[in-house]
């Protein structure tokens, strides 16, 4: 099986689960930002909890290699905040926009076209950004456990604890 077929099959399963999880809706995505419908948080955190334990075990077993994206302070913080601002208007992130279109939410098409334009604009701005925002401070490809000098399992335990508190809060509030 080559990499393109693998990507397509994985994507089909991912899209199916996104759809069944009910996260392909504007109201759910913006609902989470308003703390009124936390479906996407429940979905995301559940995936992260399962994934964090599994990836740790798999990497300790030598079956996979972890690959951390660089912690470029300007890029991640400014870019992250900008993403959030756009996300609240768009109501979809890149993956869910494609899924939402498949679910019949055709206004996602405007978002997808906007995202393609945004990507092209970024490519034009890249030489400038590389010398400015992206040049502020790059901490490199760092992981939380090594940065704090603790075991990954301690971080995972805290992550599970944090998620548990969030889940209890969501269910208590009925959101």
């Amino acid at each position, binding site marked *: 099986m080559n*990499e393109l*077929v693998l*990507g397509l099959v994985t*994507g089909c399963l*991912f*899209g199916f689960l996104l*759809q*069944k999880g*009910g996260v392909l809706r*504007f109201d759910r995505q913006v609902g989470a930002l*308003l703390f009124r419908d936390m479906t996407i948080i429940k979905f995301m*955190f*559940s*995936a*992260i909890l*399962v*994934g964090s334990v*599994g*990836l740790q075990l798999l990497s300790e077993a030598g*079956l*996979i*290699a972890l690959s*951390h*994206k660089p*912690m470029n302070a300007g*890029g*991640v*913080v400014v*870019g*992250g905040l*900008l*993403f959030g*601002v*756009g*996300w609240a*208007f*768009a*109501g979809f*992130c*890149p993956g869910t926009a*494609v899924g939402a279109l*498949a679910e*019949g939410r*055709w206004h996602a098409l*405007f*978002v997808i076209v*906007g*995202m393609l334009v*945004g*990507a092209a604009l*970024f*490519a*034009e*701005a890249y030489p400038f*950004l590389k010398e400015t925002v992206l040049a502020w401070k790059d901490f490199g490809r*760092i*992981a*939380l456990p090594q*940065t704090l000098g603790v075991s990954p399992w301690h971080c995972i335990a805290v992550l599970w604890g944090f998620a548990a508190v969030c*889940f209890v809060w969501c269910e208590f509030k009925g959101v």
Partner: protein
Amino acid sequence: MFWQRKGGGWNPYFAGALTGLLALGSAVATTKVMGKTAYLGASTTFVRAAGLVERQFLPERVEKNAYFQKEKVKVDWQFMLVCGIFVGALIGALTGRDFDLEGVPPLWRERFGPRVWKRAVGGFAGGVVAMFGARLADGCPSGHGLSGAMQLSVSGLVAMVCFFAGGVFVAKYLDRVRR
């Protein structure tokens, strides 16, 4: 049953946990097939797709652009993953009788009215800003939020906090406009 959700679909905890398992299976499978672990992500594909479209009109511009050179304009594993999301979501919607033609989402309608052109402008502008931000941050909620946080990457955890911080701020503002 426990995995079902009132009003259709699956319990989000259950669907999310399965997505976690999918991320694990995918990490192992990509390592085996491609010799290098690839993680779920989506936003780089928009760069490649934009490059493929732009190349039809301005081939030299794409060729000379440093960012397109860095990310390589081609159809790769992640590109097919994003195509797969469409197919999988369509199968899910059709089998679950969840397919719903929607031009203006309910929450948007409440705030800005039923006109499609307003939603088109808002969605388009939001898409432009979101993707620009995602590329600056080098990831979206899939790459940073799911894959990064799962690996306990500092960048993934910080990005997720920033995604929500920016979003909550604007969502609150929009909500005030309505009232």
